[in-house]
């Protein structure tokens, strides 16, 4: 909350020009509302991670609770990572400051803060690298763009590495593929060495470690929640579903992000999955131990990511399944697609995934043995294995948001679109330079979807919201679909603020609406208990 302005602040209004300072001189804005809260000590201790203090502290404080030898710790950590990650080393060396990335970051486009330009975000780290690790930097210092690691620099790192959602959009335009996501990950790892991370990320990590999911949902509670959904499904469709939990010998283990069990509209997507599996008579099981597809460890450090992800292969092995099916989640699939086999593999269970319904062999997933649900469902549709009535989704005019990670860390573009075109009749794409590999992040990824930085998130999501507004005004789009649980949590407030009148959905909610189930009663409501057909004036008069 801003304090009442002091007189000199009012005078600032008269002189509009910004100070002509070099970016290194401008301190980061760490006033209330501009940073996410730091991690609670209990969470860091539980995870055996560096804990700066047992007291709670605030980044708005002048003094931060860091150990005296903090510079040494960072230096050693940096050195270590330069050896461990060729990506870091190369990205530190080859940037030519061509500026191609500069205006591509959604945070820069929304906030207008130059340090949100990817090139500068990397320079925050690179300037210290030059001074401490390069010959030229050591000799020429500031002239070469090097600077010493001071407390202000550390604060800057904290401010700006938690203003990057690791969406990789910048790396699409860079001639060398310099990936700010990678740099942000390294920056956050370094900050974590001093215990400087945020609670919104670390609490879920601690919960996930303990209970198998980010929310800390215990096994019996999980079962109850799913049973609530099945009750709702029964009411809407007349079909009773009885999913199994931790069942040994099932053919497929289904893992989905916890966002799908607890928050609207993710819960409707969950109902969609359940309906789909029932429709197919699929031999699958859920697991309360491996109850989280997501992995906030990715936003912390590679070690945390590995610790959390191990449960997927472990559980698949324990239950003796053939392969794993994964739900609609963004960063989950970055981890599964690019990191999982390397970190936790090779998997000691199962075989190359094969759809029991169509016989399709998913060769491209032969190593990790994990298939994306849209790959699975698109395959089913192609082979006409689903009975559908797309007209049930007629009151929804749908557009599709390519979630960052499946787009730029997987290449999953056509599968969700194929499904959408089959389950709803009104589908429109957003402008070309805002979709597919150029998609704009929702502004809340990489663990930034916390309420205390709502303004920042709304600004970061502005480019995406603007594109939605365009199709809303032009085509009457009233439903924004996506395949990411963080999107489903972040888009509702984003739409509320920028494009009221647009709702948010996952793909499989629409599938669930359209599925013609065996033995179902006539459907008059969608999975949200909303009527399928608008009541016309004629009807009302009768």
């Amino acid at each position: 909350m801003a304090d009442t302005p002091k007189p000199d602040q009012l005078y600032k209004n008269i002189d509009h020009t910004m100070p002509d300072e070099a970016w290194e001189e401008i301190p980061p804005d760490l006033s209330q509302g501009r940073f996410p809260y730091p991690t609670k000590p209990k969470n860091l201790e539980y995870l055996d991670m560096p804990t700066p203090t047992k007291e709670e502290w605030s980044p708005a404080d002048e003094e931060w609770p860091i150990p005296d030898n903090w510079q040494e710790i960072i230096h050693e950590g940096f050195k270590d990572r330069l050896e461990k990650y060729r990506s870091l080393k190369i990205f530190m060396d080859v940037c030519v400051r061509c500026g191609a990335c500069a205006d591509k970051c959604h945070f820069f486009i929304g906030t207008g803060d130059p340090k949100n330009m990817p090139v500068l975000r990397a320079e925050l780290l690179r300037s210290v690298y030059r001074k401490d690790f390069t010959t030229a930097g050591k000799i020429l210092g500031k002239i070469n763009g090097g600077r010493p690691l001071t407390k202000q620099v550390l604060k800057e790192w904290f401010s700006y590495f938690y203003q990057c959602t690791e969406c990789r959009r910048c790396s699409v335009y860079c001639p060398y593929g310099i990936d700010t996501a990678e740099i942000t990950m390294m920056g956050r790892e370094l900050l974590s060495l001093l215990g400087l991370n945020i609670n919104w990320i670390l609490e879920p990590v601690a919960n996930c470690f303990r209970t198998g999911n980010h929310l800390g949902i215990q096994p019996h509670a999980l079962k109850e929640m799913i049973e609530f959904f099945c009750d709702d499904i029964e009411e809407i469709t007349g079909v009773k579903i009885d999913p199994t939990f931790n069942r040994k010998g099932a053919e497929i283990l289904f893992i989905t992000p916890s966002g799908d069990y607890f928050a609207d509209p993710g819960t409707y997507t969950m109902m969609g999955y359940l309906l789909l599996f029932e429709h197919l008579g699929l031999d699958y099981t859920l697991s309360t131990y491996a109850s989280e597809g997501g992995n906030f460890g990715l936003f912390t450090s590679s070690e945390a990511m590995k610790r959390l992800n191990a449960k997927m292969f472990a559980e698949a092995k324990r239950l003796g399944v053939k392969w794993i099916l994964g739900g609609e989640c963004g960063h989950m699939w970055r981890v599964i697609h690019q990191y999982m086999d390397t970190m936790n593999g090779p998997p000691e269970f199962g075989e190359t995934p094969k759809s029991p319904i169509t016989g399709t062999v998913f060769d491209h997933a032969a190593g990790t043995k994990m298939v994306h649900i849209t790959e699975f469902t698109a395959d089913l549709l192609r082979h006409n294995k689903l009975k559908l009535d797309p007209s049930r989704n007629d009151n929804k005019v749908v557009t599709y948001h390519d979630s960052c990670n499946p787009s730029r860390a997987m290449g999953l573009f056509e599968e969700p679109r194929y499904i959408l075109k089959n389950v709803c009749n009104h589908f429109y794409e957003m402008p070309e330079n805002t979709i597919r590999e150029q998609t704009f992040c929702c502004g809340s990824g990489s663990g930034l979807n916390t309420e205390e930085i709502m303004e920042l998130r709304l600004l970061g999501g502005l480019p995406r919201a603007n594109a939605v507004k365009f199709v809303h005004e032009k085509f009457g789009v009233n439903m924004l679909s996506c395949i990411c649980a963080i999107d489903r949590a972040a888009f509702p407030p984003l739409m509320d603020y920028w494009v009221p009148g647009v709702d948010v959905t996952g793909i499989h909610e629409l599938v669930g609406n359209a599925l013609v189930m065996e033995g179902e009663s006539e459907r008059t409501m969608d999975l949200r208990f909303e009527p399928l057909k608008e009541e016309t004036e004629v009807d009302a008069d009768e």
Partner: protein
Amino acid sequence: MNVAYLYSLIAVVVLGLIAYAGVEAAGLDVLFGVVIPYLALIVFLIGFANKVLDWTKSAVPFKIPTTFGQQKSLDWIKHNRFDSPYTTGQVVIRMLLEILLLRSLFKNTRVGFGKGQRIAYKWVVWLWLFAILFHYSFFVVVLRHLRFFAEPVPFFVSFLEKIDGMFQILLPNLFLSGVLLLGGALLLLLRRVLLPKLVYISKPADYFPLFLIIGIAVTGLMMRYLDKVDVVRVKELAMGLATLQPGIPEGGISGLFYVHLFFVSILVAYIPFSKIMHMGGVFLSPTRNLANNTRAKRHVNPWNYPVKTHTYEEYEEDFRDKMKEAGIPVEKE
């Protein structure tokens, strides 16, 4: 106001003057004609190799290509082979397209031109054009200079000269590449001085190579078209360097030549310590030179180490009673 360019401009001018004065006034032909070029070459070779080795010493723990196109998944969905390569062959082609055509910069194209558009920002879309112009003409110029270092002159050099001199104007014949190189470098410099976003982020090290290259191009063009430097003697000196029998030719060469040579030596020696190493780095960038086949084939992390996980057994210990009550199967009754 960013005066970073001033430092670099002054540095380059001073260096040029040193070379000129050194030869014309102090007669230090051997220093600038033999010693410094050799030194520069040694520094370059060792530095370049060192840098590349340093990069390769770092591990690639995870395979993290940036995917710009449809992955290979279902066989009826068209796989975008070059934006989401699946095999090594496809990666190679992707890299070639990137390096030879600067493909990523071409994506930087969707900028509208409205009324009252400021000229400076229009040039955003031309980054690709300037970069291609600059790099290719530089390449052609360097190749053409092999004329001085080989006897007989290799056939491709003569061939290149024919194409380069196709307009048949001026005497000696105008080589396009020299002019385009100067033009490209000037445009890149102008960009970096006029566009505020670039001025904000640029350091002296970003202007220095540009000024140096402009200096090289200018002195080169002057030597060929204005000064009409004695190419026979230049070739004698160059051949001497190439055959490790160095010497200053009888009658000497103009100071302008030594400025040119000095600039080149500095540039060459500077490369390993600067961002110009992007020419090596681009081949090793893990977001570009890896295939997107990570669910099919396991990538090994050389420093993968075991970590403390929460096993199922520990999980069940915590929650067994509640699980049993809820009817969830357990391992230990």
